[in-house]
């Protein structure tokens, strides 16, 4: 006989969320108690035939109405403000030193990639205790939900768009990982465990190459670099070739002006769209010559996994804020460009400028 009352608490959010939760429980008990007491006492005391005083029965009282409107409202606003704070942390920007993990949801498994070590694992996530973790997630098919009850943490894993969430595990242990958004037949089997390990254990686990099943030693950034070459990105977006496309050096995190006059921050979602459908948000000043790489496994397509690798590589090129003069043709871009010396410029792409699609 096992009647668990609450889940384990293993992240920086757990306690603050539980505090709000149990405050709400207390309020629920109090208000339900008041209502129950009123109903039962009145119904029994004033039932037909009882000899109790019924002098001056009231059918309305403005002050009472105001009392039971304003008190619940103030309590509600208090809870609202209190609970908005952890919420804005969970889905807000992570601390700068957070280690990054890519998460790909597919029916019906979770695929994790540790960005800095390149370790990949399925349905299991190993993380060191006490260190902030940022999870960038995307789904290959339908909406999934990344849910770790012990962390009080949930985020939907959408197809076509990155969602992020961050947390800091603070207790060693093995915790359930669930899919919270219904995703089809084996929805309830799409889950696994999150292992929060001591730093020593984690270091050892890492040096062993992670999970036994999926041994990968190349980091996502390294894979991304290879892909950058393989897909020919470097031809236009290389270090110094600022003729056909903006250089990726120092691009990440900056604010750019788009061809349609809007401005946008270069973040994960921006890069993703730029790779899949560059024309949707072309940076001002660059010709519309790039055709995108759709998501898929066919020729000329790119998988979700590789997309994340590429983005990881582009991120690694830094987000320098140097106010270098913009190179390029009458560009209004505010991108700070930092030349990268070692990469040779690829020059056979010069024919693109004339033969590419014109708008």
């Amino acid at each position, binding site marked *: 006989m096992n009647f668990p009352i609450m889940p384990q608490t293993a992240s920086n959010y757990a306690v603050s969320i539980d505090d709000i939760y149990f405050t709400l429980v207390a309020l629920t008990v109090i208000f339900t108690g008041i209502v129950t007491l009123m109903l039962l006492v009145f119904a029994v005391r004033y039932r037909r035939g009882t000899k109790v005083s019924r002098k001056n029965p009231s059918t309305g009282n403005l002050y009472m109405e105001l009392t039971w409107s304003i008190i619940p409202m103030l309590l509600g606003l208090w809870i609202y403000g209190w609970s908005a704070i952890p919420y804005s942390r969970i889905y807000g920007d992570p601390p700068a030193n957070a280690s990054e993990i890519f998460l790909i949801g597919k029916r019906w498994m979770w695929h994790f990639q540790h960005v800095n070590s390149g370790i990949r694992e399925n349905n299991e996530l190993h993380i060191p205790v006490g260190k902030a973790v940022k999870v960038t997630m995307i789904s290959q098919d339908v909406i999934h939900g990344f849910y770790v009850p012990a962390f009080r943490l949930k985020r939907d894993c959408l197809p076509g768009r990155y969602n992020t969430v961050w947390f800091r595990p603070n207790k060693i242990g093995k915790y359930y990982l669930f899919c919270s958004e219904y995703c089809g037949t084996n929805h309830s089997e799409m889950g696994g465990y999150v292992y929060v390990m001591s730093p020593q254990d984690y270091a050892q686990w890492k040096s062993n190459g992670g999970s036994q099943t999926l041994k990968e030693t190349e980091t996502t950034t390294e894979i991304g670099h290879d892909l950058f070459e393989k897909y020919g990105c470097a031809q236009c977006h290389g270090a110094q070739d600022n003729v056909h496309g903006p250089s990726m050096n120092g691009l990440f995190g900056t604010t750019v002006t788009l061809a349609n006059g809007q401005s946008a921050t270069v973040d994960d979602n921006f890069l993703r769209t730029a790779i899949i*459908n*560059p*024309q*949707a948000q*072309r940076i001002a000043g660059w010709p519309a010559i790039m055709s995108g790489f759709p998501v*898929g496994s066919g020729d000329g*397509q790119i998988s979700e996994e590789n997309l994340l690798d590429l983005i990881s590589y582009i991120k690694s090129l830094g987000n320098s804020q140097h106010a270098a003069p913009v190179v390029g043709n009458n560009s209004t871009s505010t991108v700070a460009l930092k030349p990268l010396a070692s990469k040779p410029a690829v020059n*056979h*792409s010069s024919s693109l400028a004339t033969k590419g699609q*014109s708008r």
Partner: protein
Amino acid sequence: MSLELQHPAVAPQRLSHQFEQIDQQNEIYIVGMWTFLVTEIMFFGALFVALTVYRSVYPDAFEQAHTALNVWLGLTNTFILLTSSFTAAMAVRSKMLGERTRTLFFLAITIMCAFGFLCVKYVEYSAEFREHHFPGPNFHWEQPVTASAVQGDLSANSQVALGSPKISVNEFPANYQPQQLALHKRELFFSLYFVMTGLHGFHVIIGIFVLGTLWLLIYFRHPTVDDYMPVELAGLYWHFVDIVWIFLYPLVYLIGKQ
């Protein structure tokens, strides 16, 4: 049954069992119809929200995709619908005054306008289908090369569209392949275009059915249309169809700069 009407020439009306007064009955019909139109506003409204959202997210793709539409045909259709709205209002007025011949005349013009609208729509749709702009597995997009394509040079465009993709692989580096899929935000535009205009067209067809039935009933002097209310209500519906198009035309055909 008391009939005390402001206008001396207004035709007499009949009262249903659940009502007390003819004014009450009239107002109930009008308000009932308006309530129905409110549901229609929300019905189309959701689509306009989708259009606005996607247009703000993918402004360039929408601006490019909309160039495939024929502005002039859209303009013609707007003109046709405004005219039909005018004649519908005139038909209601005539019916209210008991002028049977004029009612039939204006109703006929309204119906003809509706058919005219559908004919123009047919021309537009067939062009879009020829060019594989209908969303789905056969969707295909080519950036119009010259401004003439925008101007509705349908024959020229259709020949190009029937052929193979215009962009050949060898113009690009070997590992750099043109992808139709990359252009799918335009499919989004065409999805919304077809859903919205299709649904609007469906309302036009219903309108033709309703107005045509009324025309026949009035022509054969059926007692149910002694009252002007049926024509009035059909008129309200028809004006609503017009209003939807008043918004559709600028929002779908006239995106951005031409």
